[in-house]
């Protein structure tokens, strides 16, 4: 049980936390959503997308890795931070080739859902149109690098959960890309399989099972049912209850 005496200030609320808990986890447990893309609360945090940045005592930190400290003053829902999150999300859109209407993940995609929820009307910046490769070599899995946001989740999950190390990131800046650990560099020659958690937890339409088609009709898709923030907080609290309940 959280020690009810230990709290910090998040925007205009007192948020309780357990020793060692991150600001992100404490906020979500209290029902306060902090936008995030590279983080999935089911797995270890990474603090690379910077969407979850908050201001702690005047300085920016990634809330997904920053431990909560009693009495600290944290700001998250400010106009400046909202602008910054919008900008970061728009950059992700222009750095890849995201064609939401034609994407199977549409309606289930966290990038798209984040954009909607942050009120992003368009990409704003000039598209990069990078040339990236699709790896469809595996009979059951497709890696569409056009849609990869380089969140690194597949890398981390494959290593720590699947215990396989199928994925890695190479290159710098706009040339950064996901590579597959196999002699040919192709999925088909790797140890990946269709039940790998790494494959099932890509937040966007980059790493997916094949032949998923558009089998979930409008209205029934993940983010037709609930806002990303609501869905995310609800999942978080359910997982928390399982772990600590």
């Amino acid at each position: 049980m959280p020690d009810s005496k230990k709290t910090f200030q998040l925007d205009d609320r007192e948020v309780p936390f357990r020793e060692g808990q991150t600001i992100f986890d404490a906020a979500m447990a209290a029902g306060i959503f902090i936008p995030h893309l590279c983080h999935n609360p089911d797995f270890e945090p990474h603090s690379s997308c910077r969407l979850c940045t908050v201001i702690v005592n005047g300085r920016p930190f990634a809330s997904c890795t920053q431990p909560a400290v009693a009495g600290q003053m944290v700001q998250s829902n400010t106009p400046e931070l909202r602008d910054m999150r919008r900008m970061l999300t728009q950059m992700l859109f222009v750095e890849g080739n995201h064609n939401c209407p034609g994407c199977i993940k549409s309606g289930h995609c966290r990038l798209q859902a984040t954009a909607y929820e942050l009120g992003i009307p368009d990409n704003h910046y000039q598209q990069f149109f990078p040339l990236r490769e699709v790896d469809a070599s595996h009979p059951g899995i497709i890696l569409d690098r056009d849609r990869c946001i380089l969140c690194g989740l597949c890398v981390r999950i494959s290593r720590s959960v699947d215990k396989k190390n199928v994925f890695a990131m190479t290159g710098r800046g706009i040339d950064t890309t996901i590579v597959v650990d196999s002699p040919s560099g192709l999925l088909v020659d790797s140890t990946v399989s269709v039940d790998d958690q790494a494959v099932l937890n890509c937040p966007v339409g980059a790493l997916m099972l094949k032949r998923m088609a558009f089998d979930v009709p409008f209205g029934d898709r993940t983010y037709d049912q609930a806002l990303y923030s609501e869905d995310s907080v609800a999942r978080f609290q359910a997982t928390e209850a399982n772990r600590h309940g």
Partner: protein
Amino acid sequence: MSPFLETAANPRSLRRVVIEPVTRVEGHGKVTLLLDDEGRVRQARLHIVEFRGFEKFIQGRPYWEVPVLVQRLCGICPVSHHLAAGKAVDMLVGARRLTPTAEKLRRLLHAGQIVQSHALHFFHLASPDLLFGFDSERDRRNIVGVIGAEPELARKGVLLRKYGQEVIRHITGKRVHGKAVVPGGMNKELTQSARDEMRRGIGEIIGWSREAVAIGRRLFESSEQSAQFAVFPSNYMGLVAPNGESDLYDGVLRAKDAAGKIIFDQVDYTKYNRFLREEVKPWTYMKFPFIVSLGEEEGWYRVGPLARLNVADRLGTPLAEAERQAFRAAAGGGMQHATLAYHWARLIEMLHAAERIERLLDDPDILGADLVTSGERAFEGVGVVEAPRGTLFHHYKVDENDLVVRANLIVSTTHNNQAMNESVRSVAARYLDGKELTEGLLNHIEVAIRAYDPCLSCATHALGRMPLQVELVDAGGSVISRMVKGSDGRVTDGEG
């Protein structure tokens, strides 16, 4: 076929002006009229900027995305592309025969699309010309004019279209760019309440469609223009059921010549490219399909409502079939060659689609839950539907990794390409007075093109009302007259 079309003794001596690949104003229809030494119209060329990025866009994508990706080709007929691509993809997953529910839901979706598209075309685009005459004032020749003069008619037109859109929405989840078709079937059952809602409205829709047919018939039969305006013999092609009945969703290909004689019949549509080929011409990106056995010169044909009523033996619903008989009787029982008869034919099809909707809604299968099937994997798929504007082919080849390596589409507007040129030529030859273009002539040309309901959007990937530019070119190759009609209907000399 017309002796004047592209058959001047030596077309090269017709010294045409070189047309730039059109002013890059997308969706801009441009017409060049070429005169001979006597100042008669020898050729007409309709230039449309074709959207050519499509193959690139689809290549390298996994096949299961295709039915949704192709909807982006067109904001006007996305449902037709969704269905045609869906049928092609069914073949890839070996779904030779869909479940009864999936097939009927697709047919219902298609019929909804026919109603909405035909209603839109007739009431919004065509009826102002037909009601008020091609030469009437510009300000009147639009839907607002129709609402003023015929409020009841305009109201029903709007509601007919809306009904069709509702059918689409119930099945795909959205009025435009919904998603319903998945490889081997459909993604959603129809709810009982949606079925009941559509069922309640259909009686009125059939009634209004009958009234619309009566109007279409009256306008055609009472107008002196009908028998003279762009009337020319041609071949016709369309999809029919194997028993010869009209079928807009599935069947075999049939083509007839101008006398009504069968050119081919019972053709498996997946083998279409043995019977149809596409010719490329130097002055346009649009291709010119032709019937292989007749050759490039003679083999062009028309598709769409007029063609379908000319090739089918009958319509499978009683009210529409009675109208079809009247339609064919008006042509002396033979083939109807009048371009303006497209409108009348379109309305008969709207009635037919409305009757089909009623039948499908009463079929218990429509509420079934068995939606998807599959079979042995294939690497090539062809899908065809009779879209509102005519036959629509989608053809894909995929590799062993499920990615599209080749895509080929033939849209209705492309099938009708030569026919539209011929219509313009015929109208210009008749109504061109001297060497000056007039607003009246421009209007007539526009009416001739519009009869085909060309989807410039499909062909060019642009939306909106068609701006039109017409140029008159003499035998010496000089532009002697030019007029531009903007999307607002305003006519200028095109100089700014």
